[in-house]
C-alpha cells in the first residue's frame, strides 16, 4: 500500500471518524427543512408512543368480545367491531406493537449479519470476498418475499419465524452496501495511519471503517424497517405469520376479507395503519438520505 494508491482519497483524510457536533447540527437542519421527513418522524413517533402505552389508551381489551359482531363505526367503537365483536380500534393500536417490533427486530437481525459479511468481504477481499459475494448474488436472485417464503416453509408459520425470514431476506442488501462503502474507505489515509500505529484488523474495522460507512446503513435500515413491516404483514395476511387471535394488522385485514361487502371497516383500518407507518418510514428514510449523504441524491 503506497501513498500514491491513496491519493484520490486524500481529501477524506481530514474527515474525523466520528461526525463533529457542527456536522451533526448541519445534518439535522437539512433533515428538519424537509417537510415530508419531519411529517414522517411525527407520525412514527405517535405510533411508537401508542405502541408503548397501548394498554392505557385502548378503550377495550383487544382480545375480548365487547359488543355485537360487525357493528359499524360509531361513538362507542370508532373503527367498529370485527366478526367476533372485538373492538377494531383497540386491536389496531395493539397491532402497532407487533408490526413495529417485527420491523425493528428483523432489520436488526439482517443488518448485523449482512454488515458483518460486507465488512469481511470488503476488508479482506480476494477469495473470501468472492465466495461471500457469490452467495449474496444467489440470494439476491430471489425476490425478497420468495426468500422469506422458503424460510417460513422450513420453520413453520409464526410471527417469530416471520422476523427471522424477513431478516434473512435483507442480509444480501446490507452485505452489498457495506462492502461497497468499505472498498471506498479501505485505502484512505486514516485507515492507513491506524494500521501504521499497529491497529489490528478488527480494531480498524470496528473503530475506523464502520463509523464511516454508517450513514448509508442508517438510511437503508429506515427504508428496510418499512419494507419488513410490509412483507411481514403480507405473510400474516397469507396465514403464514401471526396466528389468531393475535391483533396483527395483516392478519386482521385477512379476517375482514370474507365479510368485506358487509363490514368494510374490519379490513380497511388495519390496512390504513400499515400504510401510515410504512409511508412515514419511507418519507423519513428519504429525508435522512439527503441529510446524511448528499452524494446519494434522490432515489
Amino acid at each position, binding site marked *: 500500500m503506497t501513498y500514491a494508491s491513496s491519493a484520490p482519497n486524500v481529501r477524506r483524510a481530514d474527515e474525523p471518524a466520528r461526525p463533529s457536533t457542527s456536522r451533526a447540527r448541519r445534518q439535522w437542519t437539512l433533515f428538519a427543512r424537509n417537510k415530508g421527513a419531519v411529517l414522517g418522524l411525527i407520525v412514527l413517533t405517535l405510533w411508537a408512543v401508542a405502541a408503548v402505552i397501548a394498554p392505557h389508551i385502548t378503550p377495550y381489551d383487544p382480545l375480548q368480545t365487547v359488543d355485537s359482531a360487525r357493528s359499524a363505526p360509531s361513538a362507542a367503537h370508532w373503527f367498529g367491531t370485527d366478526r367476533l365483536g372485538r373492538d377494531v380500534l383497540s386491536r389496531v393500536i395493539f397491532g402497532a406493537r407487533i408490526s413495529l417490533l417485527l420491523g425493528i427486530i428483523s432489520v436488526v437481525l439482517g443488518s448485523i449479519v449482512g454488515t458483518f459479511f460486507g465488512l469481511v468481504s470488503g476488508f479482506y477481499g480476494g477469495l473470501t470476498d468472492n465466495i461471500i459475494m457469490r452467495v449474496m448474488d*444467489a440470494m439476491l436472485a430471489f425476490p425478497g418475499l420468495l426468500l422469506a417464503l422458503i424460510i417460513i*416453509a422450513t420453520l413453520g408459520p409464526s410471527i417469530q419465524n416471520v422476523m427471522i425470514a424477513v431478516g434473512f431476506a435483507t442480509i444480501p442488501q446490507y452485505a452489498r452496501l457495506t462492502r461497497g462503502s468499505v472498498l471506498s474507505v479501505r485505502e484512505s489515509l486514516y485507515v492507513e495511519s491506524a494500521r501504521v500505529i499497529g491497529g489490528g484488523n478488527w480494531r480498524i474495522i470496528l473503530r475506523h471503517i464502520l463509523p464511516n460507512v454508517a450513514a448509508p446503513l442508517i438510511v437503508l435500515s429506515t427504508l428496510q424497517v418499512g419494507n419488513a413491516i410490509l412483507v411481514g404483514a*403480507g405473510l400474516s395476511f397469507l396465514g403464514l405469520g401471526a396466528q389468531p387471535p393475535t391483533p396483527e394488522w395483516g392478519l386482521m*385485514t*385477512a379476517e375482514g376479507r370474507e365479510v368485506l361487502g358487509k363490514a368494510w371497516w374490519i379490513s380497511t383500518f388495519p390496512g390504513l395503519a400499515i*400504510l401510515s407507518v410504512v409511508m412515514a418510514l419511507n418519507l423519513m428514510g428519504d429525508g435522512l438520505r439527503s441529510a446524511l449523504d448528499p452524494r446519494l441524491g434522490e432515489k
Partner: protein
Amino acid sequence: MLQYIGNRLLQMIPVLFLISLIVFMIMHALPGDPAQLMLAGAESGSVTPERLEELRAQMGLNDPLVVQYGRFISHALRGDLGNSIRLRQPVTQLIAERFGYTLQLSMAGLVVAVVVGMGTGILAALNQNTWIDTLSMVIAYLGVSMPLFWLGLLLILIFSFQLKWLPPAGGSGFKALILPAVTLGFVSAGIISRLTRSSLIETMSEDYIRAARAKGLPQRLLVGRHALKNALIPVVTILGIQFGGMLAGAVVTETVFSRPGLGRLIVSAILWKDYPLVQGIVLFLAVIYLGVNLLVDISYAWIDPRIHYGNSR
C-alpha cells in the same frame, strides 16, 4: 452479440447451482420427516414403523445429503422435480398447469406498471414543480408504502361491491384480470414513474436537445423523437427486477382475488408442508426470474448502442 449471450448463459450456471444448493439445504435442514407427513396425509391410523421405514428407503431419505442433492439435481436437469406429497402428482405437471395464470397476471401487471409509470413520469418531468409533479410523487409514495393485499381489497370494495363494474374474484376472462393487474402493477408504477421523471429531466438538459430546440423543433417531437429514446434506457434496465417483484407480488394478489396460479399453490404447499412442491416452485420461479433478467440485459444492449458486449464485459 451471440458471444455476449453465450457468456451470460454461462454465468447463470454457477448462480443456478448456488440457488439450488440454498433451496435444498434449507429444505433439508428442517426437523420434519417427509415420509411421516406423507403417511399422515394418507390412510390414517395405519402408520407402522415398518411402513415408515419402507417409505423412507423408497424416497431415498436414508442416503447421505450429498447423494440426495446429486439425485435432486440430476432429476431436476431432466425436468423431474419429484411428486407433490399432498396432491400426488408430478410437481412439473402442477407447475405447468398453473404457470399460465401467473404469467398472464404478471405480464398484465407489468403493462399497467409501464403504461401508468411512464405516463405519469413523463407528465411529471414536463410539468416539473407543478401540482402534476407533486401528484405523481404522492402516487409514487403511496405505491411503495401500501400493502398489496389491502389495495386489492379496496379495489374490490369500490369496483365490485359498490360500483358493480368488475368481478371480485375468478381466474378467467379479461374483466377478471383488470383489478388484479392494477393491484399488482401499482407498486412498480410508482418506481417506474420516479425513474422516468428524473431520467427525462436529465436528458432534456443535454446539448443535443438544446440544439434540436434551437433549430425550432416543436416540444412534442423534441420529447417524442429525441429525448424519450435516451431517457427510457435506465427504465428498461429495472424492468427485469420489477418483473421479479411481480412474480412475488402474484403470491399475494392471487390470494386476494382467489385466482388459480403458482402463488396460491406455493402458499398452500407451505401450509401443507409439501416440501417437494415448495422446492420445485421456488426453483422454477428463480429460473424464470434469472431468464427474464437475461432478456432484459440483452435488450438493453440492443437498445443502447453505446454498450459493447463481448470482451469488454
